[in-house]
């Protein structure tokens, strides 16, 4: 039987797939893979049309006192609303109205052109709210808390996902620690990590930067910026000036 010696086959292969070609093809493959993944990463979670949040002639009374009235504002997808104002001017009340927790006394809040109370169930799926309270059960572990809040939204993150999220939020390796053993800032970080596990398009954040160190503030700002570039919206209050990436804030100054 006739057999090609290895030495004769090898040059042939070399001419067909020269080393440089192989590297070239591999590099192309890499590029395309990167492009595809980057593309899918930048897509919103589902291909719904871009969302808008708008207030029309919104007013608020608390304890018989007029806090604000006739607030008009339209927030498009990819933008963030910076609610500013002095203490007690009604920032938290406004945010709770946006969430549907507080009743709307005057005017209306529209999500995609429909009043939020007329589509409460659908609206809640699009919403993630983080208030002054961290909503963490002190005698449960960090992992249990995260899994439970995700379950409320109908999601079941696995251990690897929660571990990755906690690492991203600067509390790595704490998943089996009781929440009561964490510091104030760490609790806040765990509470915020809920954002990364939520598919919601509208983030409503009440003083999210409180109790956070400088690195935490930067990390959160980056997270919000990434959310906005994916077609999300954010409404937040803060007493400290922050930059969300390069996306300019849409200001809403409340006055008594």
């Amino acid at each position: 039987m006739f057999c090609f010696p290895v030495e004769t086959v090898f040059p042939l292969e070399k001419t067909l797939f020269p080393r440089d070609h192989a590297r070239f093809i591999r590099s192309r493959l890499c590029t395309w893979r990167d492009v595809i993944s980057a593309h899918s990463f930048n897509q919103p979670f589902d291909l719904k049309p871009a969302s808008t949040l708008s207030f029309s002639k919104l007013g608020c009374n608390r304890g018989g006192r007029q806090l604000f009235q006739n607030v008009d504002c339209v927030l498009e997808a990819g933008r963030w609303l910076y609610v500013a104002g002095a203490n007690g001017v009604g920032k938290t009340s406004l945010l709770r109205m946006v969430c549907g927790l507080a009743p709307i006394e005057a005017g209306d809040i529209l999500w995609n052109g429909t009043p939020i109370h007329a589509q409460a169930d659908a609206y809640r799926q699009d919403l993630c709210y983080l208030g002054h309270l961290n909503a963490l059960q002190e005698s449960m572990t960090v992992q249990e808390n995260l899994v439970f809040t995700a379950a409320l939204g109908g999601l079941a993150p696995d251990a690897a996902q929660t571990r990755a999220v906690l690492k991203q939020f600067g509390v790595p390796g704490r998943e089996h620690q009781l929440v009561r053993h964490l510091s104030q800032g760490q609790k806040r970080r765990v509470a915020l990590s809920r954002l990364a596990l939520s598919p919601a398009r509208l983030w409503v954040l009440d003083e999210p930067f409180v109790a956070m160190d400088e690195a935490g503030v930067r990390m959160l700002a980056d997270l919000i910026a990434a959310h906005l570039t994916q077609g999300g919206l954010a409404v937040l209050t803060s007493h400290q000036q922050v930059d969300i990436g390069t996306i300019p804030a849409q200001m809403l100054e409340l006055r008594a």
Partner: protein
Amino acid sequence: MKTLGLGSVLLAVLRREVSLALRQKGEVLTPLVFFVVIASLFPLGVGPESALLQRMAPGVLWVSALLAAMLSLQRLFATDYADGSLEQMALSSTPLGLLVVAKAISHFLLSGLPLVLMAPVLGLQFGLDGRALGLLMLTLLLGTPTLSLIGSIGAALTLGVRGAGVLLSLLILPLYIPVLIFGAGAVESDAAGMGAGGHLSLLAAMLVLSIFFAPIATTTALRISLE
């Protein structure tokens, strides 16, 4: 990420409540110890006259069970309200009514069911026979879930109110009276030879009604409390 059906969410809430209760054992044990103490004090106070004890046993056990179940009601939503979890529950895509049902079931499992299991032991102190003990357990099994469901309305209404405990009892006790009357009456009427079927049917009817209406009322009350 995997998505969950409503049943799995309900199970997740139940698991959370039960594991929390097991970590704070005192909270599960307090109503049970209360039940045992109250029901054991009666034979000591009334004296060892067995005919009298037998006659008052169902009523005494039912009243003690009712008070014991009410002890833990105030905590049903209070901790979740204080740490903000309740807000997240109200804003989640899961219907709040379902979460309320899960809470009521967990209240029954943690404070109602132990009472049902403990009742025959206490019944022996009163000299009840096997048939009466079985019937007593059955009435408690039908009645305590109703107490948990009706109680959840009161717990939701008194959230964040000062002196919530007293207010809660005042609101809830009138609604508990029918359950008490038919629960305690079943054993008596069976002993008198009239059969307990009617009482049991009425208890079951009250359970069905409260399964349907209590979550609606509780949900509304919670949304008002959260405003």
